[in-house]
């Protein structure tokens, strides 16, 4: 399937959390991300980075404005196609990995296509192939609780790319890793970018941002696009 371009297009997208004191977490964001970009979203804690990532990953809905993903206006889209887009077009990498304990690396990776309707055998075969791609072929049958932090994040990345998503979203992917291992993870993400994966990496680490092809800073809910 040819991937439409741009992949991400936000117009005046805002997110306000209701409460006794409404919090404007994202203010009128305008953002376009093209196919093959590797974008670092930087900013201090509470600036609105994760809010932006959740909106782009269709885990949350904007309070105002519009968001088009792969040309699809997601603003008023129902839960079924939103879930479908998450299952087939988006890959998530989390800071804390979110792997299921008691399952092998291959079983965790195979979950990446659990909700696409793919047959189990296909998912398992692809999981082993992707684990090989991230350098963990020999750990495929190991319980993830017995893997190191770096290995766990590689498993999480393998799960995120199992279905070859159009958009890879990473939330502080090196946040729980020491510098050396974090660097190897960034190397892996760089390789995947070279393979054509469009990536948005949320980070407050300048070193991570320096590797990206484009940097966007978030300050008090406003986007400042520093360009490439």
């Amino acid at each position: 399937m040819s991937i439409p371009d741009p992949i991400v297009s936000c117009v005046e997208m805002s997110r306000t959390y209701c409460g006794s004191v409404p919090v404007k977490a994202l203010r009128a964001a305008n953002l376009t991300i093209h196919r093959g970009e590797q974008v670092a979203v930087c900013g201090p804690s509470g600036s609105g980075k994760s809010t932006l990532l959740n909106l782009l990953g269709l885990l949350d809905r904007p309070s105002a404005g519009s968001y088009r993903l792969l040309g699809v206006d997601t603003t008023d889209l129902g839960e079924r196609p939103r879930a479908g887009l998450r299952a087939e077009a988006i890959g998530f990498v989390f800071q804390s990995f979110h792997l299921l304990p008691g399952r092998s690396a291959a079983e965790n990776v195979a979950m990446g296509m659990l909700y696409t309707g793919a047959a189990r055998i296909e998912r398992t075969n692809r999981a082993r192939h992707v684990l090989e791609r991230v350098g963990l072929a020999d750990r495929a049958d190991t319980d993830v609780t017995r893997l190191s932090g770096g290995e766990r994040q590689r498993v999480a990345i393998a799960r995120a790319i199992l279905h070859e998503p159009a958009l890879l979203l990473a939330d502080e992917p090196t946040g729980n890793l020491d510098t050396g291992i974090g660097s190897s993870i960034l190397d892996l993400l760089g390789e995947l970018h070279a393979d054509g994966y469009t990536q948005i990496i949320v980070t407050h680490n300048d070193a991570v941002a320096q590797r990206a092809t484009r940097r966007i800073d978030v300050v008090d809910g406003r986007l400042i696009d520093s360009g490439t």
Partner: protein
Amino acid sequence: MKEEAQARWNSRLRLSDVVSESLLEVSRRPARTVMTGLGVALGAAAVVATVTLVSTIRFQVSDQFDARRATQIELRTRSGDTGAAWMPTGFPPDSTTVERVKGLSGVEGVAVVRETREQLSAAINQVLDPTMTPAQTKIYGLNADALDLLELDLFGPGWTEWHDRTGQRVAVLSSATASQLGAPDIQVGDRIHLEGETFTVAGLLNGSPRLPGLAGGILIPLGSVDRFELDTDRDRVIVVTAAGAAQQLATVLPIAFSPNMPDGWIAYAPQDDATLRLAVDDHLQTFALALGGIVIALGVVTIGNATLTSVMARIHEIGLRRALGARPSHIVTHIVVDAALIGLVGGVIGAALGLLATLSVAAVQGWVPVIEPRILAIAVVGGFLAGAVAGVYPSRVGSRLEPTEALRRE
């Protein structure tokens, strides 16, 4: 465009994946699964044990009592029944009548029983010991067939149709009666004296299951009892039938005995207690099901609580699944099937425990266990359904979690 997106993008979850995901979850923590399912297991065990025990006991009762209760008809003359003045109805029935009745399909034999009006004097070795005071006892006259038909537990030859027809003076008595007469160690061949007439002991009676009252008196041939004053109100004919035939035969026996005056006879068939017993069984089964239902309800609450706790502990997993494309309905499905599998495990354990309880009781009591496979299936399926019901509320809680909230809460 929106319709196009609706059609193009759609997350899907295969049924096989639902089951395999739940099996992984349930098998990952077997101890928790078993402990959680224990509530349902106890309920299922209560249902299986009670229902199978009721069936087993019912079978034992039927086995012991049905044969006698359902194979015996007692006939009395109408005058004997009401005291009203009736024309003679042919009692005792002559051999032609007896043969006619025995010819009826399902009739196995005809026993005729008469008894004396008063307690008559009876004594042993009175001649040898004239000072001994005679005891008072009832005397029963029985035809020869009655000895077998009434299943008398007899030591000794008893008497034959010849003794009966010719009025031979032979007698049968129980050891209790013999003790009453002052001769507990009486032997076959000894003499006893009834109203001054000498009779030879032809048998010792150990029991009379069909007519227990006989053991309290002295039995002599029907042809010999005429010499004493009889209580004709107590004249009766016992017709022993094949199993299950008594009810039907009771309606035709008066005609068979007196074709010209069937109203002169009243047939007392055993009450058809099958209906009564079924009603009792129904009550017991209802009680069992109610008891089991209460325990299963407790099991549902247990599984529900455990599942809710599990949902709370797996919030991040729910967030992850949502991120991977799960819809709220998929989350509901996962949680309900997880709980249902725990219920299924409980149902299987409960069925096994209930079965074991019944087999143990049957083994100790020496009973034949009666196990209905249906109840085992009901216990297992019931456990599964109970678990599914228990999972409904936690699944709603889980499915309503916002993915961002679920991912953040870890």
